[in-house]
């Protein structure tokens, strides 16, 4: 299958214009940074490395900010526009104007991914973790892959849902579960073990390790979990796309 760069670029520019015309879509990444800064000023400054400290404040904030941005931002920013386009029948117009589904998804994904990755980087200083303490390549690979997984989950929801209301209804329990991961990991050890096998759990592990000055080491479990989630969400997305199409009305 040959892809047209011109069409991907046209979709990308269209999506950028639509994003700029609806800034509420950018609310989640901005809110993630703002929330982390405000929480940082309110919470006591605990150091996870010290005896008696249940967790590290900066690690908790980074973990929370990343989950907030990647899960809520990634899923809602990708599911809502597809559902809106289906609802307003513009997706059908695009598809009958010579755009391939893959070109549409790639063109739509690029601006989202750039915003998510930029926010993931800005969350480091916002949460109070020192840049020097971060193994940047590992951080970028893990958070970018997790962002991609979230975008794919959003695409699955957007492709399955018939309209925006249905998309947000389906998203809500998923978002609540994903955003609860950092807190659940702290307060329940058994659950923490299970959550290690979610992509949100991998992000929480990464930020905890960074904040506790333990450094982060690549490990088979985290890499396998992310790879498995990526393959599973991509496979599920392809299945739902083939079954429903982009505009099944």
């Amino acid at each position, binding site marked *: 299958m040959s892809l047209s760069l011109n069409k991907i670029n046209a979709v990308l520019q269209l999506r950028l214009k639509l994003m700029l015309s609806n800034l509420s879509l950018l609310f989640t990444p901005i809110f993630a940074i703002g929330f982390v800064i405000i929480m940082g000023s309110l919470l006591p400054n605990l150091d996870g490395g010290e005896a008696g400290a249940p967790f590290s404040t900066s690690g908790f904030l980074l973990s929370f900010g990343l989950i907030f941005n990647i899960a809520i931002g990634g899923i809602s920013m990708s599911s809502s526009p597809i559902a809106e386009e289906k609802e307003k029948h513009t997706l059908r117009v695009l598809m009958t*104007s*010579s755009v391939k589904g893959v070109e549409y998804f790639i063109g739509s994904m690029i601006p989202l991914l750039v915003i998510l990755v930029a926010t993931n980087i800005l969350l480091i200083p916002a949460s109070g973790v020192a840049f020097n303490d971060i193994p940047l390549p590992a951080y970028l690979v893990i958070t970018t892959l997790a962002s991609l997984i979230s975008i794919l989950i959003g695409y699955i929801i957007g492709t399955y849902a018939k309209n925006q209301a249905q998309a947000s209804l389906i998203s809500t329990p998923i978002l609540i579960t994903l955003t609860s991961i950092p807190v659940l990991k702290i307060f329940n050890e058994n659950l923490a073990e299970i959550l290690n096998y979610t992509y949100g759990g991998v992000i929480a592990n990464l930020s905890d390790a960074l904040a506790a000055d333990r450094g982060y080491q690549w490990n088979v479990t985290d890499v396998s979990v992310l790879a498995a989630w990526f393959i599973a969400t991509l496979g599920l997305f392809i299945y739902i796309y083939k079954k429903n199409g982009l505009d099944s009305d």
Partner: protein
Amino acid sequence: MGKKLIQVERLSKKFKDQVALKDISFSVHAGEIFGFLGPSGSGKTTTIKILTGQLAQSSGRAFVLNNAVEQIDESIYEQIGIVTDNSGLYDRLTVYNNLVAFAKLLNVDKKRIDFLLKRVGLFEHKNKMAKNLSKGMKQRLILSRAMLHQPKVLFLDEPTSGLDPVTTEAIHALLLELKENGTAIFLTTHNMEEATKLCDSVALLNDGLIVEHDTPKALTLKYNQDKRYQVLLKNEKEVNVAHSAESIQQINHWLLNDELLTIHSCEPNLEQVFLEVTGRELV
């Protein structure tokens, strides 16, 4: 007659137990406006969806630009334009940006956007958000978008439904211009006046079945069974006479005595033809 650009052979479509199309066949040539006429629910939109690759037929064959409809891909979409009830606009983009997005997709020079906007009377509104346009303006914008890439085939599903007469007239003028330039236009409508005015040939569709197919003129003549004439005399008296030796003598008499002001033959219009063929009205 131009090249055959749409060909439909014994096309049928079933939705579970309901038969939407029954063995329909027709063809549309370059530079022809083909009217597909029928009441709501007769299968017009289903036919457009099948011909544009959005719905699979149950049986039969259909070709658009010599390509089987099952194989319609991006290269065909680059050569056709589609206007349906469900053709959405990007509400939060301006009129101009709505067209720019598609001009980029279809590799169309932006100069054509201004040309088209002037042609449909939207140039002064180019910076207006699409959501703030009236229904008629939206329809003209959708039509401009479908014509942006100068398609070889244009599918129009009730393009003037609910529009004011001025907008309807502007759209008709555009369609006739496209036809002159060789575009094959597939037009569905239940407006028989529109069909008579625009179409080179029409097919009357009833419950998924083509019940008549010919030029509007030929159809009205075919169903002109009782051949009557409407006569207006100079004394303002209106007379409706049947075609007979007696009435021809009477008309001759009026003519010779300079009593006759106007005389018209009373062929049925397409609406009456449809009623006669199907026993139902076009609603």
